[in-house]
C-alpha cells in the first residue's frame, strides 16, 4: 500500500510535469545541452527519459512524505502508550 501511495501520486505529477515541460522544450534540445549521454537521443527516448525522471523525483518526494507521516504517527502512538508523568 505504501508503494502504491508513493508511485501513484508521483505518476500523476509526472504526467502533468511531462506535458508542461515538453510543451516548451523539444527533447532534441537536450542533445546539445546535456552530457554526452544525450548526444544521440531521439524524441521518443527523450520523452520517456523525461517522464521517468519526473516520476522518480516525484516518487522521492512522495516517499519522504510517507516517511514523515509514519514516523510522526509512531512517535504519537509511543507517547500515548507511555504512562503519564508521575
Amino acid at each position, binding site marked *: 500500500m505504501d508503494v502504491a501511495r508513493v508511485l*501513484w501520486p508521483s505518476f500523476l505529477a509526472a504526467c502533468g510535469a511531462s506535458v508542461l515541460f*515538453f510543451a*516548451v522544450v523539444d527533447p532534441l534540445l537536450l542533445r546539445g545541452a546535456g552530457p554526452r549521454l544525450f548526444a544521440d537521443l531521439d*524524441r*521518443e527516448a527523450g520523452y*520517456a527519459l523525461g517522464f521517468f525522471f519526473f516520476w522518480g523525483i516525484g516518487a522521492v518526494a512522495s516517499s519522504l512524505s510517507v516517511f514523515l*507521516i509514519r514516523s510522526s504517527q509512531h512517535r504519537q502512538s509511543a507517547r500515548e502508550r507511555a504512562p503519564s508523568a508521575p
Partner: protein
Amino acid sequence: MKLAAAAPGESPAVAPGFYAAAQKIYPREVKGRFSRLRKWAVFVLLGLFYGVAWLQWNGRQALLFDLPARRFYIFGLTLWPQDFFYMALLMIIAALSLFFVTALAGRVWCGFACPQTVWTELFMWIEQWTEGTRSQRIRRDQQPWTAEKALRKGGKQLLWLLLAVHTGFTFVGYFNPIRTLGAQVLGLALGPWATFWALFYALATYGNAGFLREQVCKYMCPYARFQSAMLDPDTLIISYDNGRGEPRGVGRRGIAARAQGLGDCIDCTLCVQVCPTGIDIRAGLQYECIACAACIDACDPVMDRMGTARGLIRYTTENALQGKPARMLRPRIVVYALLLLAGSGVLLYSLVTRTPLILDVIRDRNALFREVHGNRIENAYTLKIINLDTRMHSYRLYASGMEQLDIAAPSAPIAVSAGTVESVSARLQAPRALAGGVHTISLSLAAMDAPQIAVREKARFIGPNP
C-alpha cells in the same frame, strides 16, 4: 455536504497507514433504464476510442497527437508546440465542465463516462460471458479447480489480455500514426518505445479494469475525494428514501406493510448485491458511491412486484428528500456556467481568429551594420517563418517604421510548404543620412493568396552613431 462513514460490513482500517485487505466484490448483473444507458455509453465512448484512431482526414490520421514530430492534428486543425495555449485552455474547459456537471447532477461522470467505469464494464461483460452470473462466480471460486473452471477462468484471462493489448496499441496509435504502427506490428517491427508504452497502457487497463476496479475509485481517484466539495443540498444524488423504506423487513403475506408497521424496503439486499463498489446505499450518501444507479435498476422491479411505487431508491436531492423546494439555479451553478461560457468563448474566438503563420526575426550577430555602395547602411536578419496552415503559401515581406527603408533581400516572395519552418536571410537598407542611431522598425509578412494571413514583428535597425 456530509458523507456517511464506511459502509457496514466493510472492515474498518486497523490503523491509519495500514491497508485493510479488500474483499473481492462480485457485482450482480442488473437490467434497467440506467444499465441500458451505461451500455450505450460504453458502446459510444469505447467505439469512439477504438474507432477514431483509424479515421482519416485529408490523407492523414484525423486525430493524432504526433509526439515524435511535435504536431497535434485535430481534424482540419494543426497545433504546434507554440499553440500550447489552446491545449491548456481546453484542459481548463474540461475541468470546468466536470465541476459544472458535478454540481448539477452529482457523479454522472463516474457512473457513465469515466474510462475506469467504461472499461470495467467491458471487462465485466467478458467475465459474465465466460464465468456466468454472480452466484455462479461465487460458487465456482469456492470450488476446487476442475478442467471447466480452468477453461472458463483461462478464457476470461485470455480475452482480457487480448482486449488490454489492443487497448494499449490503440492508445499509442493516438501518438504515433496508427496505420504505420499496425503495419509494424504485423511485420514484428514495432519500435522499442511504442512497444513499451503499448504494453504499459495494456497492463494499466488489465490491472485497473480486471482487478482493481472499485478500488481505483475508492483509494486512487482524487476526484472521488474532492467531489464532495462540489456537491450541495440541491445536487442530484442517488439516495434511498429513509422515510419511506424504514423500518425495513418482510411482513406477513396478505397484510399491507404499513399495517404491520413496516416501511417499503423488504430488505432483499439486491441493491447491495448489484453495487460495483460494494456499499449499502441505505446507509446514506457515501464517498464510495460512483452514482452508477445500478441500485435504482435493482430496486424498481422489486417495488413493482410489491405493488408499491417505484423510486424507493432514486435520483433526488438532499433538499427534496427533506421536503424542501429544489433549486436548479444556485450561485455555484451560475458561476460555473459563466466561467465555462467564457472559457469556451475565448477558445472559439482565438481559434477562429488564429493566424496560421509565425514570424521570428533574429538580428545578425556578427555585425551591427554594414556600409554598402550608394552611401547606404545595411542590416542583416534571419527570418524564421513557420507556416501553420494546411497548405503551401507564398509570403511577401514588408518593412516599415523608417523613412526610405528598402528590402534588398529577399527579392522574390518566400514559398513555405504546409506545416514547415523556413529560415530566410533578409537584408534591409536605408540611406546613411537617415540611418544614424537605433531605430525600431517593424517587419510584416503576408500571404499573397490570402491577405488575412499576415503577421507583424518588431525589430531594430542600427546605423552608425550620428
